[in-house]
């Protein structure tokens, strides 16, 4: 990552311009050839600095109204297997192992699940819990996004 990489990413912070040649627009803005923008972005993607290049969708606005973190207690020797298994479900978008708080909060695996109804989340969680024999979990439903200050593309329209 150098200054030019940073400048390109900064131009893309609010998303690509909705023009016929969006990367050319960015190149002109920065005064570099379009090809350099394309090569650098491709490289950033290959090296994993860009985790994904694509659309971010708001789940609640496509009907996925129930969203929850489910915290699980998994025995240490099973964390890898269970973590990888849970990660393979499309309904689960995030899956992390975390260091718990001893004798107070023993949950060490965290999954984020999206569904149309809470009932579905409860059902899926119950099924997974029974199938994998991981009885200790808590469902933490999202009530409200407290960080609504993200600027949207609309404000960046070219």
């Amino acid at each position, binding site marked *: 990552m150098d200054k030019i990489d940073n400048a390109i990413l900064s131009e893309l912070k609010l998303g690509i311009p909705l023009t016929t040649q969006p990367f050319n627009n960015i190149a002109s803005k920065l005064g570099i050839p379009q090809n350099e923008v394309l090569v650098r972005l491709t490289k950033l993607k290959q090296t994993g*600095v860009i985790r994904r290049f694509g659309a971010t969708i708001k789940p609640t606005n496509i009907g996925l109204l129930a969203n929850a973190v489910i915290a699980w207690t998994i025995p240490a020797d099973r964390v890898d297997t269970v973590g990888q298994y849970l990660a393979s479900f*499309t309904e689960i978008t995030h899956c992390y192992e975390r260091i718990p708080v001893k004798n107070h909060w023993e949950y060490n695996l965290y999954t984020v699940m999206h569904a149309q109804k809470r009932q*579905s989340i409860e059902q899926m969680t119950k099924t997974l819990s029974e199938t994998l024999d991981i009885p200790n979990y808590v469902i933490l439903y999202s009530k409200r996004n*407290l960080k609504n200050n993200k600027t949207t593309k609309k404000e960046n329209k070219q």
Partner: protein
Amino acid sequence: MDTKQATNKEPDLQLYQLDNTDKQLLQLLQNDFPITTHPWKELSHKIGLSEQQIINRIENLYAKKIIQKIGPIIDNSKIGYTTATLVALRVPENQVDTIAAIINQYSDISHNYEREHEYNIWFTLVAKNTKTLTQTLNEILQKTGLNQNDILNLPTKQRFKINVNFRLTDTI
């Protein structure tokens, strides 16, 4: 990865205001966006719309607040933010907004949600090292007047998955 569906699968998403073309477009856009001179043209071959039709539809999806952004998502761990944690706070109901505002002042906060639990504020925090992370958390405790019993610090040990990619149609 991403091939399984839970056994008790939900019925297909009832997407209000979205036709099949929108669904296919959203499905395409969530995956690898073409980093090329004419990206829309490339997509247009896959979906059978003109470049302009695609752009119009995307503008409409932005207007409906379905698309939040089309662009790169950065992996913080690859740009020096090697420490990350999930933090939960136990906060009196009537102080949630005030305390959320304090937390949101920090730029290294990525998600911040009110959740239905005794620990009712949950946010994620990244830092360049453990020292900075601890400092930030102590600052937050100080500014909010909460004490150590009201906070859960759950550092990331291992990431199995992060892939926010919703399935909208099976046809593409």
